[in-house]
């Protein structure tokens, strides 16, 4: 692999050139590798339409026999329709996005533009928490929320988002605000805007690209989050999609793969949609900040 890539490397950064044999080969290699990579996912999608007992006897992609039974079975597998889990996940992810957008942008504005007591120390602390693994605060946080009687509700998963705990996004937004011209703030202040007015009328609208990145990643992370819901949500009707999928496997054993694949495919649909609509923001977010 590395020999091939080194050999191909010398065109780095060049705008498109006339098609050469080398380029055709590169295209073929990329598509072939891409197919190998995505094959498992495609296979999962088509398997969801195969009768369960045939999934393992025919490795091919195209189902010889198409059935929708998996979808019906999977939908009710846990005794509660899957729509409930989608509703839970959507609620948690949606509120998390709103929470992060509001709280992180205000916190970032304060760090970037306002002067207050202990600012350097607080800023350093915030940066420090970026490195902090979730697992470190997992236990005390659980004890805290248990004390508040919030376990088995979505509150522990949503409320922190309104308190700007995702310091990575705060940092991202701080950096972005620092790039905005201060003259705008000054002009608004002269026109009689207080700090909140400046934030709401000037900064917030200009933050749009950074906010888009925040929203996209918050949604994806919350949707995929497993450990958080696993700790806090115990009653089946409160499950998020990811926990429900896992519980599905535990309750039905390995017998009903077809139904499980069907629900798995459904659980990925929102991610695909976000991916389709927000590709630009995704790529931008990753290449400038290294967000996952």
């Amino acid at each position, binding site marked *: *692999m*590395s*020999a*091939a890539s*080194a*050999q*191909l*490397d*010398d*065109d*780095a*950064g*060049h705008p*498109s050139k006339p098609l050469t044999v080398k380029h055709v080969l*590169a*295209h073929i*290699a*990329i598509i072939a590798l891409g197919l190998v*990579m*995505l094959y498992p*996912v495609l*296979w*999962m999608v088509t398997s969801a339409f195969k009768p369960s007992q045939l999934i*393992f006897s025919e*490795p091919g992609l195209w189902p010889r026999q198409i059935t929708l039974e998996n979808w019906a079975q999977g939908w009710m597998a846990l005794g509660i329709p899957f729509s409930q889990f989608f509703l839970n996940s959507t609620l948690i992810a949606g509120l998390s996005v709103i929470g992060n957008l509001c709280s992180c942008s205000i916190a970032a504005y304060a760090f970037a533009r306002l002067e207050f007591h202990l600012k350097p120390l607080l800023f350093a602390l915030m940066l420090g928490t970026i*490195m*902090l*693994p979730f*697992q*470190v*605060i*997992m*236990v*005390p946080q*659980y*004890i805290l929320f248990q004390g508040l009687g919030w376990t088995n509700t979505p509150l522990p998963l949503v409320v922190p988002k309104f308190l700007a705990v995702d310091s990575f996004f705060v940092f991202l937004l701080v950096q972005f605000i620092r790039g905005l011209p201060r003259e705008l703030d000054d002009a608004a202040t002269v026109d009689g805007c207080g700090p909140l007015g400046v934030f709401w009328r000037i900064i917030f609208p200009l933050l749009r690209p950074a906010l888009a990145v925040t929203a996209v990643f918050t949604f994806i992370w919350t949707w*995929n989050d*497993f*450990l958080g819901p*696993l*700790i806090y949500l115990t009653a089946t009707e409160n499950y998020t*999609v*990811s*926990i429900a999928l*896992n519980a599905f*496997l535990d309750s039905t054993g390995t017998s009903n793969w077809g139904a499980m694949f069907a629900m*798995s495919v459904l*659980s*990925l649909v929102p*991610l695909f949609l976000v*991916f389709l609509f927000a*590709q630009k923001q*995704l*790529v931008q977010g*990753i*290449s*400038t900040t*290294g*967000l*996952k």
Partner: protein
Amino acid sequence: MLASLYLSFTNYNLLGQTRWVGLSNYAQILTDDPRFYAAAGVTLKYVMAGVPLQLIFALSIALILNQGLTGLTFYRSLYYLPSLLGSSVAIALLWRQIFGSTGLVNQVLGLFGFTNLPAWIATPEYALDTIILLHVWTFGSPMIIFLAGLRQIPRDLYEAASVDGAGRWTQFWQITLPMLSPVIFFNLVLQMIHSFQSFTQSFVVSGGTGGPVDSTLMYTLYMYHQAFTNFRMGYASAMAWILMLAIGVLTAIAFGTSKYWVHYAGDK
């Protein structure tokens, strides 16, 4: 955070009295808990194998994509897709199936005439490898960062080098790698921190047990069990702090050695 540090010195179990036990949690973890070492070993193996493999893969693809091919945006998206899906439970479940005894991998290998194939995820020797493979599969985001980094390398460096008669191989070693080293470093640290915290994959693939024979018992999975199965909150907190120290030390090592291999434009 401080609460977690405090708890690590207690025997808190959610119900009874909290008792200060000093360093005994740490002492027990380090001297009297073989599963801790198993979990630490599994995690280290996962990080040491998974991260470099993933980065090499990401860089190779980025290099191939970065030669002015048309359709770059499409390919970039195509290769990023697994990263987006990779941390979801659905993909972990899929993984569990395709590496099972009658799974997709064995079926495909069977077409090539292989027989007597193991059930990869149920075999202690291979179970972790399948999870590492899952990690490598999600190479999309480091790849995008590499692509952005490759764009920053000035063209004229390559032109000057070819005038001097440097071959492509030499150019790669003399120009691409050094110029890219800050990005490699960035990706390395990021992925390292990220992999240490990996949880979902091992939980789902092993059905929550870390089996077979603890071969996929990730550190965080073991911590989860101590905290939420055995309700040893203090013990788990102590484990969390050991994890944090480990990440801190490794990151510090990465930063410490970086001056020998990371070249920033500007300092010569």
